[in-house]
C-alpha cells in the first residue's frame, strides 16, 4: 500500500476575467473568486481513485500560501484526501514564491511523511510554470513521470502513459516517483456539501517554511506585469477585389 502526497494550489478561479493592477505590480486578487488549480483537482482525483482501488493507504494534501489556502485544502479533503498540510507563506514572500521554493517544501514533506508517490498538477493556471513536479523529483532524486494521462500500479513500480507532442509515451518507473497530472487523466469529482461539512473534521496541520528548513526568500524581482496586447478588430470588405488589394498591402499574397 502506498502513501500518496498531492500538491494543491489556490489560484484565481478559471472563469474569472483577470485584471492587471494599474501600477503593474501584479493582478487584482482582492474580492476575486479563488479555487483549486484545475490540474491539481485532477491530481487529487487520481489519488482518491488509487485509494478507492486499495492501492493507496493514505493521501496527504499540501498547499503553500496565505491563510485562505486552507479553503482549497478543505476542498481536497472533501474530495477524499485524509489529511491536509498548510505551509503558511504570506505577504511579499508569497508574491515571489516560485516552483523552486514549493518543490523544496514538497520534497521535504515527502521525506518526513515517508510517501511513495507524489502527484501534482502539471502546471498552475496562474503562473503556468510547469516546473514543480520536475524539480520535486530532482530534489528527492526520484523518478518522474510528467503529463500523465493514465497511471497503472504494478508491484513495486508504476506504468504511466504520458502525453507528449504528437502522441503518447508509455513508461515504467520504480517507486517512489513524482507524477504530474495532465488534463485527460480523469474527470475530477465535485466536492459535495455534505462532504465539505465532513471535511471540517479532518485534520489540517499548520507548518511554516522555517519548520521545514526551507528558505523562501525571493529569488526574483517582479519588474512589471502587463496585459497581453488586445486583438485588432476585424473589418468587413465590400468585394473580393478590395480583399485581395488589402491582403497584398499586408504582404499576405
Amino acid at each position, binding site marked *: 500500500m502506498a502513501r500518496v502526497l498531492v500538491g494543491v494550489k489556490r489560484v484565481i478561479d*478559471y*472563469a474569472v476575467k483577470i485584471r492587471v493592477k494599474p501600477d503593474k505590480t501584479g493582478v487584482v486578487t482582492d474580492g476575486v473568486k479563488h479555487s483549486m488549480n*484545475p*490540474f491539481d483537482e485532477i491530481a487529487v482525483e487520481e489519488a482518491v481513485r488509487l485509494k478507492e482501488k486499495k492501492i493507496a493507504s493514505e493521501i496527504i494534501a499540501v498547499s503553500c500560501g496565505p491563510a485562505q489556502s486552507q479553503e482549497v485544502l478543505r476542498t481536497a479533503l472533501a474530495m477524499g484526501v485524509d489529511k491536509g498540510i498548510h505551509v503558511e507563506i504570506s505577504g511579499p514572500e508569497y508574491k515571489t514564491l516560485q516552483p523552486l521554493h514549493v518543490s523544496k517544501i514538497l520534497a521535504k514533506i515527502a521525506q518526513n511523511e515517508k510517501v511513495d508517490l507524489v502527484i501534482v498538477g502539471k502546471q498552475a*493556471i496562474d503562473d503556468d510554470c510547469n516546473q514543480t513536479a520536475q524539480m520535486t523529483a530532482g530534489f528527492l532524486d526520484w523518478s518522474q513521470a510528467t503529463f500523465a494521462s493514465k497511471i497503472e500500479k504494478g508491484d513495486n513500480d508504476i506504468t504511466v502513459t504520458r502525453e507528449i507532442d504528437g502522441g503518447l509515451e508509455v513508461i515504467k518507473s520504480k517507486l517512489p516517483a513524482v507524477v504530474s497530472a495532465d*488534463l485527460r487523466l480523469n*474527470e*475530477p469529482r*465535485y466536492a*459535495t*456539501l455534505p462532504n465539505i461539512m465532513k471535511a471540517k473534521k479532518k485534520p489540517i496541520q499548520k507548518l511554516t517554511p522555517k519548520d521545514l528548513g526551507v528558505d523562501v526568500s525571493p529569488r526574483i524581482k517582479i519588474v512589471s506585469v502587463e496585459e497581453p496586447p488586445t486583438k485588432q478588430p476585424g473589418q468587413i470588405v465590400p468585394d473580393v477585389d478590395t480583399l485581395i488589394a488589402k491582403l497584398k498591402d499586408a504582404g499576405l499574397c
Partner: protein
Amino acid sequence: MSQKGRVKNLYKTLLYYGKDWPNGYDYFRTRLHKVFLKNKDEVDPEKIEKMIKHGEFVIKEIEALYMLKKYRTMKRRYYND
C-alpha cells in the same frame, strides 16, 4: 428523513451548487426560489417524490455542466487540437 426535510435539503443543496453558476448566484437563486414556490401547495406525496427525484437529476446535470465547462475551457486554453 421526512419528505419535508428532504425537500429542504434539496433546496439547500441546489443553492450550494448555484454558487458557481455562470450567470451568477443571484440569477440562479431567484429562478430556483420561483420553481420551489410554484409547487409549494403540492400535497400528493407521490408527486412530491417525483419532484424530489427531478431535483436530484438536476443536481447531476449541473455537476456535469460544470465539469464539462471547466474541461472545455482548459482544453481551449492549453491544447491546440
